[in-house]
C-alpha cells in the first residue's frame, strides 16, 4: 500500500505540481523526422528509350483541425473555386473525413498538382495559410500498355508485403514494384529513403529544416528489350489474343516480350478505384495475365523437334528410316489420324516428317523411342521447369509423363498417350518462353540459355547434345520454311528455320503457333508467336515471327 502511495505522490508531483513544465515540453517537442522517399530508378530499353520514369507532383495537405472551423473551410473553398478548382465545402469535409484518423495527422486535400499548378496557387497572396504542399514522386510509363507485362507497375505496399519484407525496410504508404521488372528488381530500383529532420509548430507544420539526409536515388535499369521490335510485335498481333517473344539465341537477352491483351500501368501506379481494379481482374480475357511466361498451352507440332531429336539420339530412327503415312494409323484399339487425312504423306523420313509435320511419322517414331526417353529429353530441353527469366510469376508448364498421369488420374500410361505426346498434344503444356528456349538451344548448338531482360547478363548451360541428331533436326526445320508448312515465315528478307503448330483448344478454335530462328546460316534470334484461336499456325503466327525476325536481324 505504501508503494502505491509513493506512486500517487510521484504522479501528483509530475502531473499537478510540475504540469506547466511538461505541458511546455510537449508543446516544444518539435523535432520530427520525416522520411523522404527516394526517386525510383528509371527503366530504359536497349537504345536508351525511357520505359519508366518519375515525375514530381505535389499533394496539397491540410490538418483536419483547421477545417473544423466553418469559416476557414469556406475561405479555402472560395480560394480554390476562384482558381478553377471546384471543391465545395461538403466535398472537402468528405475527403477529410475519409482520411481522418486523429487531429494531428495531415490529410491530402488535392493530390497530384503539377509544379506549374502549385506555384500559381502558392504565389497567390490569398493562398490560405492552412494549406501546405508536400512533394511526391509518381511513376509514369511513357510507352503505356506496350510494355506493361514487361515492367509491371508500382503501387502502395500492402499489409501482406509489409509482413514479408524485413522489418523496417518499408512503411505503410511506401510504393513497391508489383509484377514485372518493377517487382523483380525492386531492391535495385528502389534506392534508399532519406530523412529530413524538421522543426514543427504545435500543429506539426514544418517551421524549418534542422537536418537532412539525402535520399539515395534508385539505380537505372537498362533492358535488352527493343521498344521498336516490341511495337512491331504489337502491330502484327493487331489486337488478337496471344503472345510474342523474341530473344538472342546465344545470351538469352530478351528483345520482345509481348502479351495481348494488355493493360495500361499508368493509372495503376497513380491509384485506381476498387471498382476499376475488380473489372480488370474479372475480365474474361485476363489482360493482367502475362501469356509469354504464365500462359500454358499444348505446344502441338512445334514440339515435334523434341521427339525427333529424342528418336535420333536414342537410335530409334536414323536419317534414312522411313514410315509410310496413309492418313492415319491404328494404335491399340484407337485410330490416330494424320492432319492430312486424304491419302496421307506416303513414305516419310525424319526430315520430311518435320517439313510436312506428318503426324504418322511421329506416332511411329515416338512409339519406337518410348515415353520414358521422350520425357527424359523433354526435361533436358527444360520442359516442365521455369526458364528462370528475371520476372516474377513464371509458370512451369507440365511435362506430364507416366508418373504424373498415375498420380493425377490414377491410371496407367497407354501407347495412345505416347502417340499423342509425340505430336505435342495430350497433357503436355508449355509456356511460349519455354518453347522459344528449346529452339534457341537447337539454334546455338545445344546451350540452354536463361532468358534475361536485363542487358548484358547471360547464363547458359551446355547440354552436351550429340552433333548428328542436332544437324538433322536443323535440316528438318529449315525445310519447313523453304518447302513445308512454314513458307509464309520466310518472306521477310531473312532466312528462317522454324515450325508451325496448331494446338487443339477444348474451349474453342485451335491456337496457332509458330516458333523459329534466323538467320539460318548463323542464328542470332529466336522468336515465337502464339495466337489464341488463330486456327492455323502457318497463316496466323508464321508471318508474325518471320517479320519480327526480319526486323531484328536488319536493325541489329
Amino acid at each position, binding site marked *: 500500500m505504501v508503494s*502505491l502511495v509513493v*506512486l500517487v505522490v510521484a504522479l501528483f508531483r509530475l502531473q499537478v505540481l510540475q504540469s506547466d513544465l511538461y505541458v511546455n515540453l*510537449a508543446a516544444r517537442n518539435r523535432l520530427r523526422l520525416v522520411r523522404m522517399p527516394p526517386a525510383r530508378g528509371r527503366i530504359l530499353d536497349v537504345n536508351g528509350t525511357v520505359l519508366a520514369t518519375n515525375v514530381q507532383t505535389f499533394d496539397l495537405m491540410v490538418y483536419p483541425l483547421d477545417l473544423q472551423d466553418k469559416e476557414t473551410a469556406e475561405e479555402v473553398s472560395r480560394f480554390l473555386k476562384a482558381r478553377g478548382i471546384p471543391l465545395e465545402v461538403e466535398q472537402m469535409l468528405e475527403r477529410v473525413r475519409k482520411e481522418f484518423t486523429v487531429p494531428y495527422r495531415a490529410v491530402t486535400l488535392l493530390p497530384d498538382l503539377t509544379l506549374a499548378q502549385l506555384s500559381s496557387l502558392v504565389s497567390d497572396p490569398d493562398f490560405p495559410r492552412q494549406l501546405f504542399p508536400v512533394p511526391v514522386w509518381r511513376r509514369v510509363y511513357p510507352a503505356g500498355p506496350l510494355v506493361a507485362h514487361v515492367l509491371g507497375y508500382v503501387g502502395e505496399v500492402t499489409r501482406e508485403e509489409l509482413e514479408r519484407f524485413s522489418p523496417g525496410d518499408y512503411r505503410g504508404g511506401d510504393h513497391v514494384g508489383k509484377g514485372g521488372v518493377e517487382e523483380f528488381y525492386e531492391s535495385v530500383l528502389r534506392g534508399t529513403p532519406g530523412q529530413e529532420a524538421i522543426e514543427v509548430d504545435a500543429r506539426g507544420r514544418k517551421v524549418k529544416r534542422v537536418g537532412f539526409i539525402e535520399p539515395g536515388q534508385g539505380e537505372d535499369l537498362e533492358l535488352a528489350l527493343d521498344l521498336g521490335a516490341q511495337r512491331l510485335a504489337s502491330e502484327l498481333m493487331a489486337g488478337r489474343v496471344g503472345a510474342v517473344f523474341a530473344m538472342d539465341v546465344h545470351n538469352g537477352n530478351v528483345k520482345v516480350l509481348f502479351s495481348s491483351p494488355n493493360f495500361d500501368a499508368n493509372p495503376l501506379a497513380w491509384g485506381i478505384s476498387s471498382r476499376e481494379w475488380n473489372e480488370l481482374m474479372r475480365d474474361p480475357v485476363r489482360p493482367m495475365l502475362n501469356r509469354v511466361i504464365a500462359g500454358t498451352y499444348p505446344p502441338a507440332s512445334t514440339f515435334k523437334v523434341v521427339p525427333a531429336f529424342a528418336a535420333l539420339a536414342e537410335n530409334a530412327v536414323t536419317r534414312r528410316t522411313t514410315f509410310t503415312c496413309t492418313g492415319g494409323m491404328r494404335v491399340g484399339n484407337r485410330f490416330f489420324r494424320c492432319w492430312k487425312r486424304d491419302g496421307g504423306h506416303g513414305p516419310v523420313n525424319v526430315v520430311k516428317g518435320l517439313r510436312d509435320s506428318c503426324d504418322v511419322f511421329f506416332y511411329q517414331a515416338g512409339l519406337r523411342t518410348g515415353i520414358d526417353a521422350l520425357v527424359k529429353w523433354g526435361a533436358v530441353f527444360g520442359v516442365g521447369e521455369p526458364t528462370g527469366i528475371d520476372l516474377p510469376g513464371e509458370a512451369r508448364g507440365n511435362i506430364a509423363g507416366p508418373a504424373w498421369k498415375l498420380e493425377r488420374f490414377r491410371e496407367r500410361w497407354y501407347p495412345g498417350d505416347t502417340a499423342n505426346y509425340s505430336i505435342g498434344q495430350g497433357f503436355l503444356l508449355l509456356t511460349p518462353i519455354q518453347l522459344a528456349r528449346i529452339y534457341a538451344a537447337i539454334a546455338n548448338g545445344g546451350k540452354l540459355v536463361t532468358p534475361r531482360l536485363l542487358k548484358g547478363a547471360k547464363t547458359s548451360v551446355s547440354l552436351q547434345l550429340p552433333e548428328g541428331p542436332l544437324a538433322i533436326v536443323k535440316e528438318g526445320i529449315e525445310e519447313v520454311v523453304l518447302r513445308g508448312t512454314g513458307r509464309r515465315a520466310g518472306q521477310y528478307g531473312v532466312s528462317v528455320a522454324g515450325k508451325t503448330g496448331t494446338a487443339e483448344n477444348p474451349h474453342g478454335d485451335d491456337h496457332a503457333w509458330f516458333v523459329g530462328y534466323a538467320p539460318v546460316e548463323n542464328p542470332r534470334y529466336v522468336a515465337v508467336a502464339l495466337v489464341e484461336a488463330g486456327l492455323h499456325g502457318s497463316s496466323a503466327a508464321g508471318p508474325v515471327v518471320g517479320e519480327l525476325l526480319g526486323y531484328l536481324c536488319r536493325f541489329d
Partner: protein
Amino acid sequence: MTGLGALREDLSRLKDIDRVLVAAVIPLLAIGVVSIYSALAGRGEVAVSMALRQVVWSVMGVVAFMITFAAGYERMFRYGYWLYAGALLTLTALLIAGYTAKGATSWFDFGAFRFQPSEPTKLALSIILAVFLCRYPPKTLVNILGVLLLSSFATVLVLLQPDLGGVIVYAFMIFVALAVAGTPRKYLLLLAGIALLSLPVGWSMLKEYQKLRMLVFLNPSIDPLGAGYNVIQSRIAVGAGGLFGKGFLQGSQSKLHFLPEAHTDFVFSVFSEEFGFVGASIVLFLFAVLLWRMIRTAARSGDQRGKILVAAISAWIWFQIFENIAMTVGIAPVTGLALPFMSYGGSSLVSLGAALGLVQSVHVSARPQYE
C-alpha cells in the same frame, strides 16, 4: 458423479468469488483496451485490430480463470511438479527455437500470435513454491537452499534469454514466498544482503543496452535521443496530462509517435496524458483494491499452501504494477515489464486470468461451506 456434474458443481462456487476484486479488474481491462486503441490511433486501422485482439485475449483470460477455478488450487498442487517441469521444458525450447528481437529471445512466433513462456512460468513458480515450502518448511538452511535450487532453474533459463525484468519478478516472488512461509528473519536478511552484494556481479552480466538503461535511469539526459528517449518522452507525456488530462485521443505524445512502445510497456503514459492525474489516480485505486483483496484472501485462508500461493501471485502482480508505473514516471529504470491487465499482450492476460482463478479458488475454500 459424472465429470460434467462435477464441473457444474465446481463452477457453481463462482457465486462465492470475491466480487470486489472482479469489480476492480474489469474496469482495468476496459481502460487497457481503450488506451491501446488510443496509443495506436495515429497509425490507422492497426488501432482497431489491436484493441480487438486485446478484447479477445481478455476473454481468453476469463476462460483461463474458469479453468483454474474449476480445477481448484488443490488439484493444481497435485500436478505442481509436472506443471513446473513443463514450464522449464518450454523455456528451454524457447532458447533453441524462439524468436529473437532486440537481442532477447523471449517469444515463440506462431505467425498469427506470439507466445511469451516466461508469463505462465510465473504461475507454475507460484504453485511449486507453495507446494515445496509446505512440504519442507524453510526453518533450516537445507530446506531454504532446496527451494532456492528448485526455483533457480526457471530464473536461470529466463536470465539466459536474457529477460532481466522477468528475473527480478521471479526473485521477488521467491523472497515473498519465503517470508510468508515463515523463514527466520536472520535468513531473510542474509538473502537480501547476498542479493545486494551480488549487484556488481549482476552488473557485469548485463548487456550493453541494459547497462545503458540503468545509467540513463540515474540521469536521462546523458543520451536524450537514445536510451534516455523513452524515459524523457514518457515523463513528458505523463506530466503534460496535468490534473484532468488532454482528453481521449488528444494526447500529442503518443499520436505524434514520440512515445515508444506506447501500447505495451508505456500504455500507462498514454492513459495518463489523456486522462491526467485524476485518471491515473483512479487506476492506482483500482490496483490498490485488487491487491488489498488478494492479501485479504491470503490472510483469511486457513491453508498454509493457499497462503503462500496467493502471496507469491500478489508479489508478482504488485511488483509489475509498481515497476511499470514507476518506470513511466521516471523513478525506476526501464525494464520492459508489462502493466498487469492494461498492457497489450495475450501471454500476460491469460496467465493473470489463470492466476486469479487460483486466488479465487483459495478464496472460496476459505469461506465456510455452511452458514
